[in-house]
């Protein structure tokens, strides 16, 4: 599975707005480059990124080839309860990756 780096604060106060960062290793081949053999290198990108908080979707992104290699996202959510923040990446050629982090909300 491709490596992913997640940044979720381990602790937060109830109602606090927290920043979440996610970075995944992926070349994001655009499908617009010409290879050394003169043929177009086929597209191979991550198309969807989904973040869930205790199973409920809190952020989703539809990606296109214009997203740089090793896609990075930073977004916010409200710390409502303790639990698991899970991340899912889906892409071309059956690409699938998942990662999760726990958060304690007091």
């Amino acid at each position, binding site marked *: 599975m491709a490596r992913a780096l997640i940044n979720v604060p381990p602790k937060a106060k109830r109602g606090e707005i927290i920043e979440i960062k996610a970075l995944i290793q992926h070349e994001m081949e*655009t499908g617009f480059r010409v290879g050394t053999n003169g043929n177009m290198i086929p597209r191979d990108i991550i198309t969807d990124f989904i973040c869930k908080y205790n199973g409920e979707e*809190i*952020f989703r992104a*539809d990606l296109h*080839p*214009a997203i740089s*290699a090793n896609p990075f996202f*930073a977004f916010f959510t409200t710390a409502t309860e303790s639990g698991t923040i899970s991340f899912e990446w889906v892409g071309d050629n059956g690409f699938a990756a998942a990662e999760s982090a726990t958060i304690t909300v007091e």
Partner: protein
Amino acid sequence: MTQHDDHLHATRRRFLTDAAALAGSLGLGLSLTLKPATATPATMQAALKKVVGEAPLQKGKVKLDVPPLVENGNVVPVTVTVDSPMTASDYVKAIHIFNEKNPQPNVIGAHLGPRAGRATISTRIRLADTQNLTAVAELSDGSFWTDSVQVIVTLAACVESL
């Protein structure tokens, strides 16, 4: 060449331009060369229309943050912030980013909800050339707001191969 040939050439040329114009108006890109068609202000407008539909696109509320002169067009940090209370009845549903000179106009479509607390997203994008970048925010009340920035992109001074 005879006058007859000239007439035929003119007619054929006329047909191709008309076909391209028709294709263009239908939102299709008629590419007559092998290299990928690049987005144009027209295809960007078409992509925008797909998201916004007939609703008016209003200036305001959205702030698109990009370095005015990027260090490298392959990795351009972008942040979009939308002025919104992010309550259950008044929040940002989605933030879209479009470009006008990459091979295709869409960059990202991010879907949020009131739980976000703050309508700010950051990512890193590729920009092929100096161009306009446009961000569109869709609010829970069905309104659409936008901001546009001109980004200057230069090629790296020392390249890998000639």
